[in-house]
């Protein structure tokens, strides 16, 4: 396959950055998207240029490290997968592909396509945990959890914290991420005792990091590689309202 790449290049966090054009020739259609970038980078290095910097790690869709906004959609327009799971056979010979970083004020660009997502870590540090050791996996019947709650918690826990929700949101809101992380713990007996404190702390940290506010357009749920539903945002709104009222009157 022969492709034209329009890639965001930015030397450092303060550089203005620009779109640069690369011709990617003879790319095998069975290559993954990141392998395609590897091939392009090898050729850039051979000619003495600076390779395109991008985040990647497991390359099997479970670590949440890869990012990239491909033709305006985080992780590409393919539903329910990460960038590393996208294959070049999904594109056509001769296509022009726009590759940009995940854009948000709370995700400052480090270099080229690499962004700093440590704002997510600070939200988790604010309340996305259980304060006491809950022990090893125990006998299934010793701590009953309803099937519905278990499924909802598991769906929320599927979040890999990649940040595609923020990148797709017109307001760069982190509500899907925070909603998923809070719901995952709030739904289970181990997480319930700290539910109110957790929701207030995580939402306040989210606001302090400079993420935008949800306007219920659900772009996040469409691009989430783990297909997490915007239901978790509704739940976060509900849990926050309850916690705020309890805080005010207690």
């Amino acid at each position, binding site marked *: 396959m022969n492709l034209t790449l*329009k890639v*965001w290049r930015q030397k450092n966090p303060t550089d203005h950055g620009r*779109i640069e054009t690369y011709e990617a020739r003879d790319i095998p259609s069975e290559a993954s998207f990141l392998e395609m970038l590897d091939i392009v980078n090898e050729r850039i290095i051979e000619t003495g240029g600076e390779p395109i910097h991008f985040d990647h790690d497991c390359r099997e869709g479970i670590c949440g490290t890869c990012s990239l*906004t491909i*033709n*305006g*959609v985080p992780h590409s*327009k393919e539903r329910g997968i990460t960038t590393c799971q996208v294959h070049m056979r999904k594109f056509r010979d001769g296509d022009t592909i*726009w590759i*940009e970083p995940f*854009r*948000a*004020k*709370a995700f400052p660009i480090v270099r080229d396509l690499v962004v700093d997502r440590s704002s997510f870590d600070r939200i988790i540090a604010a309340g996305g945990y259980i304060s006491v050791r809950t022990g090893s996996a125990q006998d299934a019947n010793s701590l009953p959890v309803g099937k519905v709650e278990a499924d909802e918690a598991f769906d929320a826990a599927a979040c890999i914290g990649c940040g595609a929700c923020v990148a*797709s*949101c*017109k*307001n*760069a*809101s982190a509500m899907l991420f925070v909603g998923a992380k809070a719901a995952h713990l709030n739904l289970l007996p181990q997480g319930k005792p700290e539910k109110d404190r957790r929701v207030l702390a995580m*939402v*306040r940290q*989210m*606001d302090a990091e*400079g*993420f*935008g*506010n*949800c*306007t*219920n*357009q*659900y*772009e996040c749920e*469409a*691009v989430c590689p783990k297909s997490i*539903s*915007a*239901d978790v*945002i*509704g*739940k*976060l*709104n*509900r*849990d*926050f*309202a309850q916690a*705020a009222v309890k*805080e*005010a*009157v207690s």
Partner: protein
Amino acid sequence: MLKGNHKMNPLGKALLQFWQSSIGRKIIVAVTGAMLVLFLLGHVAGNLLVFQGKEAMNDYAQFLHTMLHGQGVWIARIGLLVAFGLHIWATISLTIENRAARNARYAYDNTVQASKSSRIMIWSGMTVIAFVVFHILHFTVRVSPELANLPDTAYAAANPGEARHDVYAMVIKGFKNPLVTLFYIVGVSLLCSHLSHGIASIFQTLGIRSRKSAGFEQKLGWAISIALWIGFLSIPLSAMFGILKENPKPHHKAEISPPPASVQVVATSQG
């Protein structure tokens, strides 16, 4: 902004934090939005009385101005003003934050599933503000003398010593100007676009949307928006195209007592 916070009592601090938080302001938008939607439903239902004729419309207008000894209309107006003001204040402050949060735009912009209406909320909202100001000057303050001096002659004849404004005639006269009607069409259409996203959003922001209820809530939002659009615009269009007549004679003849000759002259001179 939080200076002196340590001196505040816990309730005050909690309220301030709610006000300053993203979700807190969104809840204010949702609650005030719900109040305004309920008002619109009452407003359209009342206004549609215009199709029942002059007496029904003017009786309704008189009722609004006399309920609770004349206090009712002011309670409603102040409540609406507060809701409208809070709704505007919270949405503008949230929008400013949203623009700042997405400080760099994508060179290749793409949208997967966000509706067009959801993406122009601030602009449809701003147009509605302009429309509401015009609408109040037009029919409530009545800056045009042509619409301000319209006594209900039939009522005055039947109730000597009393007078009331002829709202029915005012509405029909008010929509004879095609430019006014055009602005109403634009204003109401953008209002309904705003509501097609806004009503469903109320449920999500208040945390009462789930996978099971989401479809129903979105359809309810569309249904209310379309019903309001048809209901509100039926009036200016009917007035402009002469379906609503200023002096409906044959149909209502039996219901209203014939006015005295002197009044009759005034009424026909208006037509």
